[in-house]
């Protein structure tokens, strides 16, 4: 079986700034990759290219062996879910309706959401702790609640590959860990693939198998977290010296 996600000789740039050249990446079922880098390095741009929302300058991205162009948007939506970094709601809508939009790729043109679709959406809302808010208007949610709703929508979409742009944005500590555990569980139990943009190298080390460091000057390094994530390399990535601290067998990197 082909990998969930493959990038071949990918070159990406944004606004004249090179994000990566000749990036090669292959993600198998159950694998987890963290994308780390400074603000403006191009992490989100790279993730949206992997999600098929932007075109690459060169190279190609394949989902299960096929390009986005060959798949078409609807089949692609059954194979990968993408979590946006920002959520804006121009119009009022309830929390449940918003979560149900995740069912779109599974429905035919004239279908209405069925009872089963509603159950799936309710299950996803429950998983992120929003079950009580299903009738609330999205425009009244707090930043963290809105973020968890976006994650619930993604779970409702039920694609085997999750591309997450800052999944921890706006979340308080308990929810950060709950959400990371949720996705780690999906990777372990459902063999979902996971690529996520993170800002905390310690969490990347704890929740991901591999890391992709985006240096912002066109260089990208991909490797196992255990080897790639060192205080020295991360210090040069972020442009600030870091110190590695080990506590209960977990490595954390704190700014000096």
């Amino acid at each position: 079986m082909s990998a969930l996600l493959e990038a071949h000789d990918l070159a990406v740039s944004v606004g004249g700034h090179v994000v990566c050249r000749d990036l090669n990446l292959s993600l198998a079922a159950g694998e987890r990759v963290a994308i780390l880098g400074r603000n403006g390095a191009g992490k989100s741009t790279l993730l949206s290219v992997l999600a098929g929302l932007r075109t690459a300058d060169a190279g190609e991205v394949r989902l299960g062996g096929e390009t986005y162009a060959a798949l078409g948007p609807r089949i692609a939506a059954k194979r990968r879910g993408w979590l946006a970094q920002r959520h804006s709601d121009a119009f009022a809508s309830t929390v449940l309706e918003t979560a149900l939009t995740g069912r779109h790729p599974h429905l035919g043109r004239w279908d209405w959401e069925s009872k089963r679709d509603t159950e799936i959406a309710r299950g996803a809302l429950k998983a992120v702790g929003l079950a009580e808010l299903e009738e609330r208007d999205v425009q009244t949610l707090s930043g963290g609640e809105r973020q968890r709703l976006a994650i619930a929508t993604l779970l409702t979409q039920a694609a085997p590959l999750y591309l997450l742009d800052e999944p921890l944005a706006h979340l308080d500590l308990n929810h950060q860990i709950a959400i990371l555990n949720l996705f780690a569980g999906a990777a372990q139990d459902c063999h979902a693939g996971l690529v996520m943009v993170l800002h905390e190298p310690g969490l990347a080390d704890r929740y991901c198998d591999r890391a992709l460091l985006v240096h912002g000057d066109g260089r990208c390094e991909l490797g196992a977290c255990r080897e790639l994530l060192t205080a020295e390399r991360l210090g040069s990535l972020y442009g600030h010296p870091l110190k590695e601290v080990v506590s209960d067998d977990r490595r954390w990197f704190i700014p000096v």
Partner: protein
Amino acid sequence: MPSHRRAALVLAVLALLGAASFSAALAVGSIAVPFSDVAAALLGEPVDNAAIVRELRLPRALAGFACGGLLALAGALMQVLLRNPLADPYVLGISGGAGVGAMFAILLGLSAAGLNFLAFAGALSAMLIVFGLAHGDGAWTQTRLLLTGVIVAAGCGALIALMLSIAPEHKLRGMLFWLMGDLSQSGTPWIALAVLVAALVASLPFARELNLLARGHDTAQSLGVDVRRLRYSIYAIASLVTAMAVTSAGSIGFVGLIVPHLVRLAIGNDQRLLLPASVLAGGALLTFADTLARTVIAPQQLPVGVLTALIGVPVFLFLLARHRQ
């Protein structure tokens, strides 16, 4: 997401409202016709005033319903396309273009057919200019489209003001009525009705995709919508629908902005229900408004655009206040 039953109920209520607006439009006027005679006249029986009902009031009521429906549909589509609740059918300069064509036709003293032709040509030119300029290098953001539309509309507004200021006195009234929206010169209603039905049938299959588009370009794309194709189609449909409406009745304000919001406040923002409900509500509102426009100070007629605002503003404020609680 409304259930099927609720959707059917809402549409049935609005259809009744539409029927009521028709009955009023056919029965009320300088000569009051009893409802029994209206029904008889529609069935082709030779009753008193049958000609008034069939040849004067019926075409005008149908034109009013068609224009109201067209404007409400265009407004609903534009609001989703631009992801802007303040968008209306005229925001992209289509009515401005039609206005320039119409004013020019009146200045030249053309017939009604000539006026309609020039208005439609003006609307299409504005649509193509805005699309061409906003599309430009392929980057097609809502802001750019909106700004281009607003600028083209402003340019058209200046041309219209220019023509109004050089127009001879006796033509000014006709020009002003056209600009405010007026159904008395609307001609045969069947073309507008056919366009209305065709546009609704063409947009309904995309209704669920429009729900996603309202949530953002990338979100919609990531959930499986071919956003580029959808936006082109919706732009084309909404523009043609607006062009048809302004060609037959001038730029009637307010219906296209407020009716989709009224419907949204009442039933939510699911386009599968919102689009047909807006068509019915817009049609009913304009038919009622036009009936009032030709009766309140009869035999004088008011431009219907004035009445749509006078009716719509309080209704909208009431719904908004109720919604807040």
